[in-house]
């Protein structure tokens, strides 16, 4: 194992770096796109159910099919990492649009009403009141999306771009266990660290949630 590690250190690091990049860029892009979509699902209640349905359908497309199909649709090369980024962004949008909508719907209507009555305009009310109060729900969705993306990137290895997933394919091709073990350990560690990071951020930016659910 140690000789595998020392001989392939550069390959492993490159794969890890690619994995992080391929997983997290779609999280950021997806979140930015999902915010307005989720908001629309609350601003216009009639859109909420169609939104939930479309998101459900999108999320149920098998990832491998999407990886293979996207180059045809986008005109990208089959080996372009862009295919992975676009595919995972679609999944993230599908997951987080609904999360953002549910988060905003979880805000007590009395809180929104009192914000309006105090003279908040729509946009500032959203940014100052509704989104912060919806954060616990939104961040829970963000954790799921992040961890799902980290595991989905590996599937990309089957079409040649897949971060740590490439260690799996190589291991299988060569009947060689070490890269597979390293790949598994690193992806699990990566998912764990990403998840923990979001939890810590959540604790830091939503200190008030610690007192919810109990009264003085």
């Amino acid at each position: 194992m140690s000789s595998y590690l020392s001989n392939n250190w550069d390959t492993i690091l490159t794969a890890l770096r690619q994995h992080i990049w391929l997983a997290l860029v779609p999280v950021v892009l997806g979140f930015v796109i999902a915010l307005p979509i989720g908001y629309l699902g609350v601003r216009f209640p009639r859109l909420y159910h169609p939104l939930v349905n479309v998101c459900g359908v999108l999320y149920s497309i098998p990832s491998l099919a999407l990886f293979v199909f996207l180059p045809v649709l986008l005109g990208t090369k089959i080996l372009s990492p862009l295919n992975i980024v676009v595919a995972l962004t679609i999944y993230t949008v599908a997951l987080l649009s609904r999360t953002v909508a549910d988060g905003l719907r979880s805000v007590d209507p009395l809180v929104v009403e009192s914000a309006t009555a105090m003279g908040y305009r729509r946009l500032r009310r959203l940014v100052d009141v509704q989104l912060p109060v919806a954060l616990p729900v939104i961040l829970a969705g963000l954790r799921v999306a992040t961890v799902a993306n980290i595991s989905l990137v590996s599937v990309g290895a089957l079409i040649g771009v897949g971060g740590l997933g490439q260690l799996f394919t190589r291991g299988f091709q060569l009947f060689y266990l070490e890269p597979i073990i390293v790949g598994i350990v690193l992806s699990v560690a990566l998912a764990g660290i990403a998840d923990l990071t979001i939890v810590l951020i959540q604790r830091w930016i939503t200190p008030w949630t610690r007192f919810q659910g109990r009264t003085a």
Partner: protein
Amino acid sequence: MITFDDVVKVYPGGSTAVDHLSLELPTGKTTVFVGPSGCGKTTSLRMINRMIQPTSGRILIDGKDVAGQDEAELRRGIGYVIQHAGLFPHRTVLDNVATVPMLLGKSRREARAVAAELLERVGLATEFASRYPAQLSGGQQQRVGVARALAADPPVMLMDEPFSAVDPVVREGLHREFLRLQKDLGKTIAMVTHDIDEAIKLGDVVVIFRQGGHLAQVGTPQELLEHPADEFVAEFVGRDRGVRSLSFDSAADLPVRPLPADLVLDDAGRPAGWSTGESTGGTFTVADSLRLVTDLAISSPVGIAVRVDDHGKADGVVPHHDLVDHLAARRGRK
């Protein structure tokens, strides 16, 4: 002054919530809207700050039509308190109260200074400032709600069932606090409640609505209790309105008799009980109401209410039958 000028609100679907309402709410006074559910009292209140748009008619604040004003700016100048307070759960008590000053462009520091002052004003200790709403009791949250509504010192306040979500003991305390604050501040207040007792206790003017958004009667609490306009109002203000109207009559002109021999006094001249060993059950002063005197005379074991002066010294008594004569004479005067 807030003026309703022939205001109508018909909801989509055709139900009429408010039907040709014309009404004036005097400046510096508390006007309470009261009535059964579905009578349009809350709709009327919420049209003042344009949370609901009237179908026709005008609402004016000091002569200015609210419809012509920017919604957000109009609302920043009108304090708003609701049931359960509607506090922002993600902000500390201090920052909740600082909300409107911040919206009006004050710096965070200035806004917090104002907020700290107001918290003190509504009787919340400084230690609450850094807590979150979830850490407060219902009564404390409601105080923060009042402080938040007062933060920008608005001349007009709207209160939608502000005290109905707390238990009776806490409500009693909040009522006292409210009356004390309003005596100092003299805001023009419109309040909605379904509780006629609360309306009579807190209102300078009480507006009774009936189903379908019609006015049943407008008047001072005493007028409503003594001269209800019709059956509906009489029923609504309650069967014991006669006794309750005594709350508005002073005990000052009630004739008293000299202290009887069987009233035991302590060294300072304060009543300590009757020679039979029984308690006086409380005392009254000239500042109290006829209702209290009546209550004392009825519950006293000897049928006598004891009056004391400002220092607590007994200075006269009112026996049961004197009170009855006084009430009879009072009815003649009305």
